[in-house]
C-alpha cells in the first residue's frame, strides 16, 4: 500500500487541515516509508488467527450511572471546559460561522 499526492491532499482535507503543496510533496515519501514499514507485518502467516484489537487480555470496565460521581469525569465545570477556547460567549464556544 502506498499513497500519492492526491490521497494525502484528500486526507488533509477530510481532517480540515490546511497543508500547502510543498508540504504534501514532502509528506508522500514519509508516509510511504511508514506504510512500508508497517507492511512487514504482512509477512506473518495469520491464517486461522482471530483479529486482535487490544493487546491487553482484559475486557471493558463499566461505570455506574451516577452523575458527577468522579469530579474528574463529571460536568458542572463550564469555566474549565471553556477556559482554553479562543472564543467563548454567554457560556457557548464561539466558532467561525459554519452554516451551509
Amino acid at each position, binding site marked *: 500500500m502506498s499513497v500519492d499526492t492526491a490521497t494525502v491532499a484528500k486526507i488533509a482535507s477530510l481532517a480540515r487541515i490546511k497543508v500547502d503543496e510543498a508540504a504534501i510533496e514532502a509528506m508522500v515519501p514519509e508516509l510511504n516509508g511508514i506504510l512500508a514499514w508497517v507492511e512487514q507485518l504482512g509477512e506473518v502467516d495469520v491464517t486461522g488467527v482471530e483479529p486482535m484489537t487490544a493487546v491487553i487480555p482484559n475486557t*471493558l470496565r463499566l461505570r455506574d450511572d451516577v452523575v458527577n460521581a468522579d469530579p474528574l*469525569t463529571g*460536568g*458542572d*465545570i463550564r469555566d474549565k471546559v471553556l477556559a482554553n477556547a479562543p472564543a467563548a460567549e*454567554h457560556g*457557548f464556544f464561539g466558532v467561525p460561522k*459554519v452554516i451551509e
Partner: protein
Amino acid sequence: MSEYRIQGATGEWEVVIGLEVHAQVTSNAKLFSGAATAFGAEPNAQVSLVDAAMPGMLPVPNRECIRQAVRTGMAIDAQINKWSRFDRKNYFYADLPQGYQISQLYHPLVGEGALEIQLDEKDPTSTKTIGIERIHVEQDAGKLMHDQHPTMSYVDLNRSGVALMEIVSRPDMRSPAEAGAYLAKLRQILRYVGSCDGNMDQGSMRADVNVSVRKPGAEFGTRTETKNVNSVRFVMAVVEQEAKRQVALIEDGGTVVQETRLYDPDRNETRSMRSKEDAHDYRYFPDPDLLPLVLDDAFLEECRASLPELPDAKRQRYEAGLGLSPYNAAALTADVETARQFEALLASVAKAAGKGEADVAKRVANWLLSERPGILNAQNIPTDSPKNSIEANTAIVVATEAGTISGSKAKEIFERHLTSDIDLAAEIDSNKQTTDTGAIEAAVDAVLAANADKVEQYKGGKEALFGFFVGQTMKAMQGKGNPQAVNQVLKAKLG
C-alpha cells in the same frame, strides 16, 4: 389492505422504505462520562472534560446505557451479542470535539430482530413483520446555533456524549402508512421498556428515512436518505414526497443520486444537502481507547428478568383475560402511561368492590376511555391534577359498579369534585339512587297524573313518549331513581 402505488406516466411504481432511528437512551449520566443528560440545562453546564475531548481523557462506558440497549434488543426478539466493540467514525465538524464519533460498525451490541406492525387499527389480522437489522450504541454530538452572532456559530456540548441507540430497520416497508406504523410501534416499545422517553419534540427520537422507488418486483432503486425527521406524521410525508419526486425525476429521464436530504415541513418537500462525495468517507477503525465489551450471562439474565409485559402481550391479556373489546384493549395499551393508570385503577377498584379484576374491567375501561376524559376536557383539568386521584376515581367507579349512584350522577359528582371542595363520600351518600319501589311508584304516579294528556297520547300509540316519562320521573327524584327500576314501574303502570 390494498398496495400503495405511485401512479407514474410509465405505469405503477412501488416505494421501498428503511428507517434508521436514533433514540436517546434514558440514563442519568452520559455514555462515556459522568456528566448529566437532563434536558434544558444551561449551555455547556453538563460537559465533562471527556465530552469536551480534552487530551488524555479516556472513555469508560456507562453500564446502564448498555443495559438499556440490551433490554431494547430483547424486546424486539433480537440476537444479543455478548461480544461487541466500539469503533471510531471520523469526521470533522464543530459539534464534534473529538473529531470522531464513538459508534459500533463492525460488531454491534444487538443483532437481528423484528417487530410487528398492525396496518388497520380495527383489523387485528392486518399485521406485517418489519425486520430490524441491528441496534448499536453511539455518542450524540453537540448542538450548533447559527443565529446568535453575526460572524460566529455558538456551540453547546451538553448533548455531546449522550448515549444513543441507532435502530436500523430492513428495507421492509412499502408505504407511508407502514413507515408511520413502524415508528409509532417502535416508540411504544421503547416507552414500555423504559429505554427511551420517546419525546420526539425534544429530539429524543429522530429518524433517517431511506426511500427508493422501483417498478413492482424489480431490483431495488437508488435510495436517498432524509435526515433527522422528528415525528410520525413527517416520516409519512417524507416517504410520500420523496417517492413522488423520484418517480417524476426518473420518468423525466433523470437519475436518482444517492444523497442526504433534509425535510422542510413548511413547504412539505425534501431538499438536497451538500452532496460532497467525501462526506461518507468516515474511515472507521476500532477505537483503541476501548476494549471489547463482553457481557456475562448474569447481566443478560437481569436484563431479561427486568423486562415488563410488552404491549402486544398486554393487549392480548386485556382481551382474553379481562374480557375487554379489541378496541378498548388497543386504546388502553397504546401508551405505557395509559396502561399503568388503567392497571392501578383496576386493582384499586377490584379491591374496594371486593370483586375480581375481570368483573370490573369493563367499567374501569369505559370510565377511563370515554367518561372521565370528557369531564377532564370540559373542565380543562390535566390528567395529573391531584384532584384526579386514584382514591377519587376508585370511589366513583365503585359506587357506580355497586349501583349506589347512577352513571350520570357519577359524572356529575366527579365534575363537582374536580372543580370544588366537596366531601366525596358524603356526596355519593346523599345521591344514592333508590330501588325502593314504593318511592318510585309514588313519583311515577305523580308524573302520570300531572301529564294525563300525554298518557292518553301514549296509549293512543305515541310510544316515543316513554322517554319523556322516564325523564320526568328521574327529574322528580333528583336523578336518584334506579333507571331500570323506573323503567319497570313505568311499563307496569302504562300497561
